[in-house]
């Protein structure tokens, strides 16, 4: 079987079953190619005696090289379809997996990721990212990040609006920004945005690309004050983290309202109260 579908032609996703990185979005009859993959950056090791020997740690993100892919793309996926939700469960590796889902009538896709415990056998720190890419998208090295859920701030790769940035030696982390609710790209006609359920670091290091850091585990302190490595353990293994990213794509005239209403729904979700009780429906009404 080559591919499976979530949703419909108004808003849906075709998933390549042979290579679980490759997708095609269906947006109002349009077909937009999409790639999604998990990677990790190896954390820089060092003794913090000189700038170039500074270790990645709790305060700073300092990757050693480019991102390394995590996933085995030939793992079997499972798809579940019903009247309320359609979802596909993808196992990426033995410590990374994802569920992609589309609820009935919704105009966004939900990517529910689960990462951890990050392995520590090789003693190399790992900083895990979730990366979305529309290969043909032209956003001219420009992307937008929210400011605590308020207005968008324009970001340009290797550029600062308030001073002349001559050389960005940290060309990955130097382009990372806090994403408290949303990161967005635009080509002037459409908008491609990822909303997150918690504050994360993120960037767009290449046209059409959005990445968000979802988990990190390091074994060295970066000497900025805390005096502890960011190596949280739980049950002796390390933390497992689960969360959601929400993908929206569409024409500019509609997307601002789609993103705003979605952010409200997801960041101020209803509260759940459960009670064991034998009351009658009438009383409940």
């Amino acid at each position, binding site marked *: *079987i080559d*591919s*499976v*579908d979530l949703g419909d032609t108004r808003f849906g996703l075709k998933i390549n079953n042979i290579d679980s990185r490759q997708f095609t979005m269906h947006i109002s009859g349009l077909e937009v190619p999409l790639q999604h993959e998990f990677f990790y950056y190896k954390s820089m090791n060092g003794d913090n005696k000189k700038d170039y020997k500074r270790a990645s740690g*709790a*305060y700073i993100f300092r990757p050693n090289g480019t991102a390394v892919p995590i996933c085995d793309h030939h793992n079997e996926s*499972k*798809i*579940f*379809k*019903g*009247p*309320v*939700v359609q*979802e596909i*469960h993808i*196992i990426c590796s033995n410590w990374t*997996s994802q*569920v992609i889902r589309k*609820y*009935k*009538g*919704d105009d966004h896709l939900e990517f529910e990721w*689960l990462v951890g*415990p990050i392995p520590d056998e090789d003693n190399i720190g790992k900083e895990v990212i979730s990366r979305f890419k529309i290969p043909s998208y032209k956003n001219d090295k420009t992307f937008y990040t929210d400011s605590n859920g308020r207005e968008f701030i324009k970001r340009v790769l290797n550029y600062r609006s308030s001073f002349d940035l001559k050389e960005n030696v940290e060309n990955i982390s130097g382009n990372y920004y806090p994403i408290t609710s949303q990161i967005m790209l635009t080509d002037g006609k459409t908008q491609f945005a990822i909303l997150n359920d918690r504050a994360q670091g993120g960037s767009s290091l290449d046209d059409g690309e959005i990445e968000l850091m979802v988990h*990190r585990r390091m074994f060295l302190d970066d000497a*900025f*004050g*805390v*005096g*502890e490595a*960011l190596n*949280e353990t*739980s*049950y002796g*293994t390390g933390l*497992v983290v*689960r969360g959601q990213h929400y993908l929206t794509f569409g024409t500019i005239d509609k997307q601002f309202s789609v993103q705003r209403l979605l952010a*409200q*729904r997801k960041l*101020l*979700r*209803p*509260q*759940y*109260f*459960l*009670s*064991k*009780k*034998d*009351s009658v*429906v*009438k*009383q*409940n*009404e």
Partner: protein
Amino acid sequence: EPKINPLREAMGVMQHHDAITGTAKQHVANDYARILSEAITECEDVSSMLLQRYDSSSTKYETCNLLNISACTISEQSEQFILTLYNPLSRPITEFVRLPIMDNNKYIVLDPQGKNIITQIVPIPQSVLNIPGRESLATSELVFEANDLPPLGYKSYHINKDRNSNKKRRTHTTPTQPQ
């Protein structure tokens, strides 16, 4: 007020990054989790008391803090229970509810008017079941659409395990072929 103040204090005093994030020492982060947990529990008591006034009963309304790892004792182990949703937004919204359940029993979900709601049961991914320390027995989630939650208001749903359903009809969701 005395029950709400601890959360106000926790939120007001400890928002510096050296108190709550990866740049906090581990024991400080753990202590903040303790402070938040105790404060949230006290606020839950207040919410429960308010809801009891609405329905004139002494039933305790509880929250499930482990829904983020698909675990909730009440939904997993109760034959029947009530889910009450509070919408904190000032406009009506729709929420897709996911409640952890133990097996593929059929459930009947009734809205406040007693109308049957379409439900779906979806397996919990194996990677979630394998989370170290997760003690839940839930293997599936009951999913349904709670629509038109009133602005800044409550809506309750009756959820009953259907004992009469035939085993074959119980699974709503099965792996499907591409269409």
